[in-house]
């Protein structure tokens, strides 16, 4: 493909039909497959009429988009609005109740019991996240919330993270999803959920001793931390910032861990960050040639994170990761460079970086259209949106997504859920999608409220759900498999097969 300079391509996009790359509606649909959670009926035409760049710019200022419908819906998940301290009390109560039940020999899981206690906190967060993806007008924002949730993955199942993850998403991820990368990095680094997940809360300088509190504890408890823990330091460099080939060594990992000693939880609330001076390693350190003089405190961790956020390796690594999400599993250099340049110009402004990637020629290249496979989350939400379905008031969608292999906030490894096609395509995964597609079409899928349009026929299914991309085989199959069915059954079968088709797995 000929490389176009971004300005020219942006101009082309503004001026209408891109004959070589399909109609303006095709382009709008491509954009909605990537920068949104899939088009609803009519969205392609609406965005084409608005203009690609105008839509992107409107989406990059989400606070100006009216989103009352989604917010009102999400308002029903009451635990989202509770403080982390309150949720920790719920967590503690649930644990006490569980232990009491176990002692009494009551092991019945009781699926009929309505979720309560800390289980409800998890389901509220998962279900609200799915509902926002489906309903929000701030589509690109919700996509980026998902991107950063994965980039700065925490595992909700680890100890008190059952109580803390709600606040992690609300106060570390969401306010910074389109802001400065540095702020996002700092917010995640200081959040108790991350400090618990990657163990930095436990990391103390070698030989550091917690000061005695009163007379009750004469001796240092046997389980008290007695040295550094490298876990967060390593993932910070490998995953969050520089990338595994970003130029650091094992010595750098250790130095970073030492710099971040003392970054921990407030022992009283367990829900807030606290810097514990007694646990901090005050000796001099060196990270990739950067000197950190002896005597530093909390400020040297902040300086380190700011330095990492602005490091060329970080720009490249994070830009490549955004491109893997938006453009191709193996992102081409052009869009990565576009992201890096925007990063340099804007001082790490995420909105500017995303804008540059979405307007790069690579994003629009024919070979990068419909070349990515949807994750289960993307599949589920895009199917619902294609049918203009809305979530019901149960937690069925959260559970369904778990069955598809992507339980939200429950990815154990710090890499987060993978973006590559090979990770999500297997025989089992396809069967799960086929069965779900038919279940949704037949209205047998709990969790969704929808009515199949009575005017649906093969032509409208091909144009709508299949976005005009149906292969000859798919068209023939839709016709032959539904020819002898009655109209109602026919609609269900058409929609089910279309949602399960190879075309609909792509985005």
């Amino acid at each position, binding site marked *: 493909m000929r490389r176009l300079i971004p300005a020219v391509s942006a101009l082309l996009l503004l001026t209408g039909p891109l004959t070589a790359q399909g109609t303006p509606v095709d382009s709008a649909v491509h954009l909605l497959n990537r920068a949104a959670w899939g088009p609803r009926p009519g969205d392609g035409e609406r965005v084409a009429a608005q203009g690609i760049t105008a839509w992107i710019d409107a989406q990059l200022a989400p606070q100006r988009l009216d989103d009352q419908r989604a917010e009102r819906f999400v308002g029903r998940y009451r635990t989202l609005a509770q403080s982390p301290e309150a949720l920790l009390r719920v967590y503690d109560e649930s644990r006490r109740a569980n232990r009491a039940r176990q002692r009494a020999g009551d092991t019945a899981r009781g699926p009929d019991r309505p979720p309560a206690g800390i289980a409800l906190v998890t389901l509220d967060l998962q279900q609200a996240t799915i509902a926002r993806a489906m309903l929000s007008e701030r589509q690109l924002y919700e996509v980026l919330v998902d991107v950063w949730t994965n980039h700065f993955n925490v595992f909700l199942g680890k100890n008190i993270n059952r109580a803390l993850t709600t606040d992690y998403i609300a106060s570390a991820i969401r306010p910074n999803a389109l802001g400065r990368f540095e702020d996002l990095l700092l917010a995640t680094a200081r959040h108790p959920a991350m400090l618990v997940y990657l163990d930095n809360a436990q990391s103390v300088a070698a030989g550091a001793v917690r000061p005695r509190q009163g007379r009750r504890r004469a001796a240092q408890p046997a389980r008290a931390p007695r040295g550094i*823990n490298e876990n967060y330091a390593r993932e910070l460099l490998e995953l969050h910032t520089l990338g595994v080939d970003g130029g650091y060594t094992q010595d750098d990992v250790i130095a970073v861990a030492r710099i971040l000693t003392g970054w921990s939880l407030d022992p009283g609330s367990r829900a807030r960050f606290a810097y514990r001076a007694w646990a901090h390693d005050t000796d001099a350190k060196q990270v990739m040639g950067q000197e950190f003089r002896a005597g530093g405190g909390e400020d040297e961790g902040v300086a380190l994170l700011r330095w990492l956020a602005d490091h060329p390796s970080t720009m490249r690594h994070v830009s490549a990761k955004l491109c893997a999400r938006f453009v191709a599993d193996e992102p081409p250099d052009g869009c990565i460079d576009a992201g890096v340049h925007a990063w340099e110009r804007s001082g790490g402004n995420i909105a500017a970086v995303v804008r540059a990637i979405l307007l790069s020629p690579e994003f629009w290249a024919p070979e990068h259209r419909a070349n990515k496979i949807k994750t289960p989350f993307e599949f589920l939400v895009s199917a619902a949106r294609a049918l203009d379905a809305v979530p019901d008031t149960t937690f069925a969608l959260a559970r369904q997504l778990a069955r598809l292999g992507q339980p939200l906030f429950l990815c154990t*490894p710090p890499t987060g859920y993978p973006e590559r096609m090979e990770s999500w395509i297997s025989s089992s995964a396809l069967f799960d999608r086929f069965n779900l597609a038919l279940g949704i079409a037949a209205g047998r899928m709990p969790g969704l409220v929808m009515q199949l349009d009575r005017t649906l026929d093969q032509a409208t299914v091909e144009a709508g759900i299949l976005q005009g991309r149906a292969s000859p085989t798919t068209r023939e199959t839709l016709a032959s498999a539904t020819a002898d069915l009655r109209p109602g059954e026919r609609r269900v079968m058409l929609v089910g097969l279309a949602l399960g088709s*190879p075309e609909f797995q792509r985005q």
Partner: protein
Amino acid sequence: MDRRVFVRAGSLALLSLGLDPIFLDRAAYATARRTGRKTLVCIFQRGAVDGLNMIVPHGDPFYHRARPRIAVRNALDLDGYFGLHPSMAPLLPFWQAGTLGIVHAAGSPARTRSHFDAQDFMESGTPEDKTTEDGWLNRHLVATQPTDHDREHIDTPFRGVAMGTQLPRILRGTAPALAIGNLQTFGVRGRGAAGDRISQAFESMYAGGASGIVASSSAEGFEAMRMLRAADMGRYGPRAGVEYPRSTFGQSMERIARLIKADLGTEIAFADVGGWDTHVNQGASDGQLAARLRDFASGLAAFVHDLGERMADIVILTMSEFGRTVAENGSIGTDHGRATAMMVLGGGTRGGMHGRWPGLDPANLADGRDLAVTTDFRDLFGEVLVKHLGTTDLQQVFPAFAADSQRWVGAL
């Protein structure tokens, strides 16, 4: 990457006679079944298991010194120097019977301490080379692929099978390989004419309108679905007295046993088991790691008892991306290290401790802190492939690695 489409030629030829393809595939597989097929079961302990607390070098004076709060003090002695973690007691009978081989200080030459990279290298089989697209188990399947004319050795979609809904890196590649979660619900829902209509529609859409792994995953899935339904997997439950742990890992082992008992042609089975990244409060004889090891050992032991005499044709091989620091860290856990312990269990195994023990003397540690790797994982895996599965072309399985049987530890 396009996979070879298997069995197509045969069933299409029969289809031209006007027979029902579903019936015909079953018939083709009926003749394809081989008894006495060798099977390799690979278990990946994801998250880097602490080999030093799994297979405890209690005779090494530096062991207790480095781990004041987490050393295992009541290991089940094996040979006067090494011992099993007490949670691994279910495996002790196999040691005594001489069917459990242990390779300590095994690992990767790559010095990365990244879980992701180290797992990737151990699955691709090419340490330090990130460009490899396929996994070494899949390359074994390719290297030993039966010819299309050899009906006795006809390929089945169950030849390489992983438990779970995602196909792991280690089994990805050009040879057919299957990811399967629940054996009972695998497939398109709906029986009878309606079910067949749906199945045929999806099958033809993916055969004609998809490519690469999307198309091959569908083709293999439908073949496998028909075979599973014909085989009536309910008949192959655990034998009396055998109880698998109710964990994900226990269920995976139980399913692998069913597949083997049903003679579906499984040559490679793969399962993973997590929870080994014990940075904090890992415990000693009891605690976090002890619980994971209990699940792990009970699952393996149940499998061996369940398969009984069939174990003569089966080898279980365990692996983990790296081990953990010799010294405990500040939070009564361990950080990422280098070498760990791997196990070989089953038919043809030479029981005992294998490989060279580098010792825990600080002077002998890798980077001054970690158990040094004395057995390259490719030497161990290569030996198992050659001796158990008859691989003849290790060069293809582990490219850019000069295989040398002189370096093999003699685990089989």
